[in-house]
C-alpha cells in the first residue's frame, strides 16, 4: 500500500473501476470518450479546456493526463499555461464575486 494518497501509477488502473460496477463504469467511459471526440469544438480545444478544469478541480491524475494529451496534439507550453490561467481566473473570479455578498452584508449591518 502506498504511503501517500496519490500514486501516479493508479491512473493506469482507472478503467478497472468498471469491474466493481460494470454498467455505470461503461456508461461513464462511453460518455467520456464521446465528449472528447471532435464536434463543434476541435479535440485540441477540448483538450485545453480539460487541462484548465483539471487544475481548477486540482486533480493530479487529470493534470498528468491532459499535459501528455496536449503534447501529443502539438499544443505548446504557452497555450497550456494560458489555459490554466483561464481556469484560475474563473476560480479567482468565483471567489471574488462573493465579495459582493460581503459588501451587501457589511452595508446592511452598518450605520
Amino acid at each position, binding site marked *: 500500500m502506498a504511503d501517500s494518497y496519490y500514486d501516479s501509477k493508479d491512473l493506469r488502473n482507472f478503467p478497472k473501476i468498471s469491474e466493481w460496477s460494470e454498467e455505470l463504469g461503461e456508461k461513464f467511459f462511453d460518455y467520456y470518450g464521446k465528449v472528447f471526440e471532435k464536434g463543434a469544438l476541435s479535440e485540441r480545444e477540448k483538450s485545453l479546456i480539460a487541462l484548465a478544469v483539471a487544475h481548477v478541480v486540482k486533480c493530479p491524475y487529470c493534470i498528468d493526463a491532459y499535459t501528455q494529451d496536449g503534447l501529443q496534439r502539438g499544443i*505548446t507550453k504557452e497555450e497550456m499555461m494560458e489555459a490554466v490561467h483561464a481556469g484560475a481566473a474563473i476560480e479567482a473570479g468565483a471567489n471574488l464575486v462573493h465579495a459582493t455578498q460581503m459588501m451587501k452584508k457589511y452595508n446592511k449591518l452598518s450605520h
Partner: protein
Amino acid sequence: MATKSLLARNKLIAKAEKQLEYLANGMFKNGELPTFQKKLQLTNNFPLKPKKLEILQLNLGYMCNQVCEHCHVDAGPDRKEIMTQETMEACLKVIQKTNAHTLDLTGGAPEMNPNFRWFVEEAAKAGIQDFIVRSNLTIIQANKKYYDLPNFFKKHKVHVVSSMPHWTKGKTDKQRGDGVFDKSIKALQQLNAIGYGMPESELKLDLVYNPSGAFLPGNQAALEADFKKALFEDFGIHFHQLFAITNLPISRFLDYLIASENYEDYMYNLVDAYNPAAVKNVMCRNTLSVSWDGWLYDCDFNQMLEMKVDSKVQHISDYDETELQNREICISQHCYGCTAGAGSSCQGNVV
C-alpha cells in the same frame, strides 16, 4: 544537447544486445506487461509473416550532420559506417528486378555518402514508381557541395521526406540541435521555390513528425492541419503530407527514456495503445531494410538492434525475394511502437 553519438560516448546502451536485454527485462520479465510475442498470440497475429513486398529501404550510412536526441540510428558526424559502391551495385541489381514499388533511401544523412548522387542516378533508371530520399533539410545548407541538392532531387523526380518535430523553433531545436529550425525553414522554402510540396505539384514533399519527448504522436490528420496552417501563415511554406511517427524505445530514445525515468510509463502507454488493426499493416510486413553493409532486416529498427531477417537469405548479395517472403518477422518489445494507436511506419499511420 549531445554532439556525439552514444557509440562515440562509449555508452553501454549503444550496444544492440544491451538494448534488447533492457527491453526483455523489468515489467516484461515479471509479467506485469505482456511481451510483444504474447500480445500477438493473444490477438491471433503470431507469427508475424510478410505480405507482398512493397518497399525496399536502403540505409546508405549512419553518418549525419545532426545529432538528434531521439535518433534510433544513433547517427552523427562521428559515425563512419557508409555503404560502399560495391554494396550499392548489389542493391542496384536487386532494384532492377524487385517487385517493390517504392525505393526508400535513408541514413544518417544519405546525401553524405560519397556515392550518393551516382547511386540515385543509377537507381532512377530502374523506373521505380516512388523513389524516396529521407533528407534532414539542414544538409542542403551544411556545405557548398550540397547547395544544389534540391535541383538534383528535382532532376530525378525524387520524393523528398523530411523531419520536422514542430512548427515552432524552440521545440525543433531542442530535439534536433540549435539552428536546425531556421535552416529547415530555409530549405523548405528553397524546395517550394522549385515546385516541391506545392499544391497539385508532382514533386512530392512530405514531412515526418516525431514527438519531442516521452509521449505518443496525436492524430496525424489534426497534426497535419496544424503544421500546414502554422508553416504557411508564418513562413509561406507548403508541403503535401505529414507522417506522424512514434519514437521507438531503442538507441538514443531508449537512453533518454531511461535517464529521464520515463521508460516504464512510456512502455505502459505503448502497450495500452496496442491496436490489432495496426498489426495488419505494420511496415515490416511490406518492407525490407538493407543496412550500409548489405545485411537484410525486417525494418530499420531491427537493423539498429542487429536482428537480421530469419531466413536462409540474409545478405543483399544473395537476395531472393521469394525465399524472403517465407520468413517469420523478428520481434521484441520495441515493436509495440509500431502497433500503438493508429500505428506507425516510415509512411506514418497505418490504420
